[in-house]
């Protein structure tokens, strides 16, 4: 049974974490079948979607190892491509925001364009063709409002167009893009991102080229607001805990984790829903309770939380990430087969 605990659980002790690394490799445990078996993996593996909203997805992956779950997380953050503004051609910028700061801000705006419809730009290609570039224009001039009241100091009343929002960016089709994407509507994901502030007489006239890129190159290309996972908590009470100790125990954990039941007139504590716990380890500060509870995590149960910036829905992002990992393996398999190894 000790071997089972070492294989399945990461145990949180008072001063450290035990059994962190995966040890179930063939030969480590006599009597256990640890060699890779695709069929056994498929039987034990499952995915449960817990919650899906417009831009967030929370799902469980059970039966997979940390190395592969982490690979998916890393790919979601850094290697799923998106489109973002890369080159900004400044024709006129008399605003108070410097050219390079303005260009930096424009690059960070998420653009609603499906990156799978576009190709990567060739290295050294300055112009950009219609298959790899999206062109946007931002042309805005601030004017004084002649109808404003004499004593008002509210800039919304005094000036026209003094706040430059992302909704002022317009798509300029290149070449045959109107035919390639007849009902496409390329624009920033959010209309109300403030880019710059202007006063009368100042204007901004820029042309922007969006290209396809990955997060490894620049963080503006990352398609997720964040993608993270945590392991499923597993709380075991080693002895029955009653009365006052039960009350203290309930306060040690996040609300909803421990519930108190009334059995034969006595209050008995029971673990209701360990999943909600955030493991603050408060229980180790109580001398009487710290040896009666075992805090652990289930090693192969991952609770993923993916939040997208709005370019692609989160379930599409996860599918793309898995396909990218397959693409990497396929690349090396092709190289192995084509190049003779000496």
């Amino acid at each position: 049974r000790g071997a089972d605990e070492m294989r399945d659980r990461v145990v949180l002790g008072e001063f450290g974490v035990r059994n962190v690394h995966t040890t179930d490799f063939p030969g480590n445990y006599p009597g256990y079948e640890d060699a890779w078996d695709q069929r056994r993996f498929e039987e034990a593996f499952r995915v449960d979607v817990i919650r899906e909203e417009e831009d967030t997805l929370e799902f469980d992956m059970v039966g997979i190892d940390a190395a592969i779950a982490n690979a998916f997380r890393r790919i979601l953050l850094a290697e799923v491509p998106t489109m973002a503004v890369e080159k900004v051609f400044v024709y006129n910028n008399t605003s108070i925001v410097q050219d390079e700061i303005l260009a930096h801000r424009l690059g960070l705006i998420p653009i609603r364009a499906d990156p799978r419809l576009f190709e990567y730009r060739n290295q050294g290609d300055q112009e950009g063709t219609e298959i790899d570039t999206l062109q946007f224009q931002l042309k805005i001039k601030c004017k004084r409002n002649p109808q404003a009241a004499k004593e008002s100091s509210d800039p919304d009343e005094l000036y026209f167009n003094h706040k430059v929002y992302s909704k002022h960016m317009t798509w300029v089709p290149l070449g045959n893009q109107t035919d390639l994407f007849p009902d496409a509507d390329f624009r920033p994901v959010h209309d109300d991102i403030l880019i710059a502030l202007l006063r009368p007489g100042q204007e901004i006239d820029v042309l922007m080229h969006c290209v396809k890129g990955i997060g490894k190159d620049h963080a503006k290309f990352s398609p997720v607001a964040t993608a993270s996972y945590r392991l499923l908590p597993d709380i075991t009470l080693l002895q029955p805990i009653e009365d006052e100790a039960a009350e203290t125990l309930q306060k040690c954990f996040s609300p909803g984790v421990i519930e108190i039941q009334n059995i034969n007139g006595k209050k008995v504590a029971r673990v209701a829903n360990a999943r909600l716990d955030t493991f603050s380890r408060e229980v180790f500060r109580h001398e009487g309770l710290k040896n009666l509870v075992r805090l652990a995590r289930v090693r192969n149960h991952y609770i993923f939380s993916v939040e997208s910036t709005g370019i692609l829905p989160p379930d599409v992002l996860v599918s793309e990430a898995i396909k990218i990992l397959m693409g990497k393996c396929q690349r090396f398999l092709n190289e192995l087969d084509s190049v003779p190894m000496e």
Partner: protein
Amino acid sequence: IQADGTDGNCVTFVLHDEDHTLGNSLRYMVMKNPDVEFCGYCITHPSESKINFRIQTRGALPAVEPFRKGLNDLMGVCQHVLSTFERSVKEFRAQK
């Protein structure tokens, strides 16, 4: 890839343009192979993106075989994960 080794059984592969993403997952799949005696990877320098991936087999099996099997197994895992995930999302949406 480049390969380097004294005999066919212990080989160090140098994989270019890769990092922990593929390195760790591939190491896990190759370690699950009972013919492999030693498997490990390291990143030579954090500024260059290449990893040294070393496989040592027990017996007379050439080291390229566990490498190939590891890649194929990893492909199989990804395929299964993808189909299970898409199926779960579809079921979740259907029952909402």
